[in-house]
């Protein structure tokens, strides 16, 4: 489906911005619209609660054991990734699939185009896949003369609009029904209300006509099973099944970290994936594909190609960051993250992968200095670690990245001077007391001159701090200190108890 070039470059820019990426600047755009921030908040909170409920129902007090086991299985696979990939290539080839290896995005795009052209494909249907987003496959196919349609409802809307997905599971979390209806009216000439049911019906009818003529299907994969060579694909809408069942040629693009050792591991991992994403016990459709169909089939030709993609994943393989590759892209950590919910969703992260997991892997895949803001985009509250089905310690990973950023860039003279003075004050109780006294005095004064009253306490807030400290108050107010500080309180308390 063609879209005008300006909107196309807009969408590319959203997830592949000029580097180094400036998160603050981007967030000014993503938080501009209050309605959209609120919607993201609501959806993320609902999903978070649904996950919580279904986990408790299913596993009760075994939740920690479950995630430990799942984490161990994925970790084990990564520890032996070369072996399991080899095994997967072997068994997938045995069941009749063609396996290709791509070092980077450009190579993966080339393989895709070559396969499509060797079959003379004209019309491609795609199911939602973050990895194809990552390698910018859509625009490559279109410029290769292959009409390409996103078929996941959210991605379809994003494609029509020249926008980019803002959540790895629910791509249009940032849009409202009115704007979607407007897009459908403008781009498809559809007469529709803004009722989600009507909108879905428009997409259904439109895409059903596309399915009939499609001669190429492109999907991602949720798991690749090493011992059986099986491709596992989970979808709710059914578009993933059209993509894999109807066109004669199917291409699967999957990151190398998707491999798991045994088919039986699915009995655990499938239980976790859907519950973590949406709170369902299982996605509506879970397809286990064991090679192209062969006989007893009126639909004669069928070819399945699997492209295994590295594209920076091997940068994460060294032991300290290896656990990040356990991720099964369930999106639970995005929904749980207060920063994601306030930042206006995924576009704030300037990368296909957003939220806590995006903050951790994007700098490693695309360069720490290119994305130095991302590791800081976390309050380290630990919520992401708690919900992660494969037990990735995301806060720790983010701390490590911050450390790396600091050791890479030598801090400025002023900054080191400030820290040296701070250390001095901490060393001598006398200096500490003196500075905290002056601090109190000055902030009080500041509070009186520029401050606003807090409606919940009789404290004042500093609205505009002077000089170096002005940055602190650009996006928040500074509270004036309480009348008693901790030391003061402690002394009084001890006096009270001794008398």
């Amino acid at each position, binding site marked *: 489906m063609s879209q005008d070039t300006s909107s196309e470059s807009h969408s590319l820019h959203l997830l592949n911005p000029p580097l180094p990426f400036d998160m603050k600047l981007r967030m000014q755009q993503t938080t501009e619209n209050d309605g959209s921030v609120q919607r993201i908040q609501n*959806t993320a909170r609902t999903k978070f609660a649904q996950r919580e409920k279904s986990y408790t129902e299913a*596993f009760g007090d*075994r939740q920690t054991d479950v995630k430990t*086991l799942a984490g161990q*299985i994925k970790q084990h696979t990564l*520890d*032996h990734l070369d*072996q399991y*990939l080899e*095994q997967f*290539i*072997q*068994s997938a*080839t045995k069941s009749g699939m063609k396996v*290709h*290896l*791509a070092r980077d995005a450009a*190579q993966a795009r080339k*393989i895709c185009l070559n396969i499509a052209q060797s079959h003379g494909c004209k019309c491609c249907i795609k199911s939602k896949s973050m990895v194809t987003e990552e390698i910018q496959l859509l625009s490559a196919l279109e410029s290769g003369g292959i009409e390409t349609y996103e078929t*996941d*409802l*959210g991605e379809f*809307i994003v494609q029509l609009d020249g926008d980019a997905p803002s959540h790895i599971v629910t*791509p*249009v979390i940032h849009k409202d029904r009115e704007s*979607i209806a407007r897009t459908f009216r403008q781009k498809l000439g559809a007469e529709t209300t803004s009722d989600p049911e009507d909108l*879905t019906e428009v997409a259904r009818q439109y*895409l059903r006509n596309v399915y*009939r003529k499609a001669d190429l299907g492109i999907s991602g994969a949720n798991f690749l099973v090493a011992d059986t060579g099986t491709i596992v694909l989970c979808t709710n*809408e*059914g*578009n993933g099944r*059209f993509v894999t069942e*109807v066109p004669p040629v199917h291409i699967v693009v999957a990151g190398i970290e998707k491999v798991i050792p045994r088919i*039986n*591991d699915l009995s655990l991992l499938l*239980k976790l994936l859907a519950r973590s994403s949406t709170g369902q*016990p*299982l*996605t*509506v*459709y*879970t*397809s*286990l*594909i*064991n*090679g*192209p*169909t*062969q*006989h007893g*089939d*009126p*639909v004669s030709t069928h070819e399945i190609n699997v492209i295994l993609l*590295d594209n920076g994943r*091997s*940068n994460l*393989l060294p*032991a300290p960051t290896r656990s990040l590759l356990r991720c099964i892209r369930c999106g639970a950590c995005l929904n749980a993250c207060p920063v994601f919910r306030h930042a206006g969703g995924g576009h704030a992260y300037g990368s296909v992968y957003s939220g806590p997991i995006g903050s951790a892997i994007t700098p490693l895949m695309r360069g720490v200095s290119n994305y130095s803001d991302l590791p800081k985009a976390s309050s380290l509250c630990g919520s992401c670690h708690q919900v992660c089905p494969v037990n990735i310690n995301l806060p720790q990973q983010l701390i490590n990245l911050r450390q790396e950023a600091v050791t890479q860039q030598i801090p400025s003279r002023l900054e080191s001077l400030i820290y040296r003075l701070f250390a001095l004050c901490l060393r001598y109780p006398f200096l500490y007391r003196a500075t905290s006294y002056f601090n109190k005095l000055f902030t009080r004064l500041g509070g009186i001159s520029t401050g606003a009253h807090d409606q919940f306490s009789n404290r004042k807030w500093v609205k505009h701090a002077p000089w170096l400290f002005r940055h602190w108050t650009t996006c928040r107010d500074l509270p004036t200190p309480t009348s008693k500080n901790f030391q003061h309180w402690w002394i009084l308390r001890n006096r009270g108890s001794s008398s």
Partner: protein
Amino acid sequence: MNHRESSSNAHASTHPALTNMGGCNQQEFLTRLKDPLEVTPTHDEFACPPILDDSIFRTTASDEDVVSRFVSQAKAAGTQIHETNENDLCSTINRILTNHKCRNVSLGFVDSPMDQRLRAYFSAEKKLDICPPSSDNSSYLFNVDAGITDVCAAIAETGSLVITTQSRHFRSISLIPPMHIAVVNRKQILADLIDYFDAFRDDVKPKPGFSTLFITGPSKTADIEGELVVGVHGPRSVHIVLV
């Protein structure tokens, strides 16, 4: 030579990844991974993955009343359940079809006696057309009102149907028509997903061309403002006829 090397070499020599479409050479690709993995000749044996202790993640015990659990879970996923017996099977299906004003159906049965029985029933009373899989693609299915299939198992924990098939066309019968009717025998219901992977070990093992589908309710989405809509690309309704 230790176990790992022998198995790797065997893999590499028989079925390497393809390079004819511009892909990377397998040896080169995997070697790049070995460095960060710190693969040394001493850490070479093919370690076993952690044991899947199902007491940790089983959600449904096999001595539970699996039938009623299946029914309630399937309903929760939006599936409609019609309980019947062996004798009334055909008439139950017929009733569902007439209630929904279906004019034609497509059948996808692995169990051929059942297939024959239904064909005989529908053609004897000229009730409705059975579309044969005669053309060389699935496109005729876009004009079919309902697809009827049997299943190879059902799962109580999730309310899912399991269909294993070698035929792409057969798979599409449960996808393209707006209504899917599945015939499930109570004996086919397994308690937990774990039981499927255990009981059907050989079935789930790769027989080339075999694919397995887990179907849990009608197709749905919550993409637009998180509001649930049923019937996106796949069937709008799924009916289970429980015998």
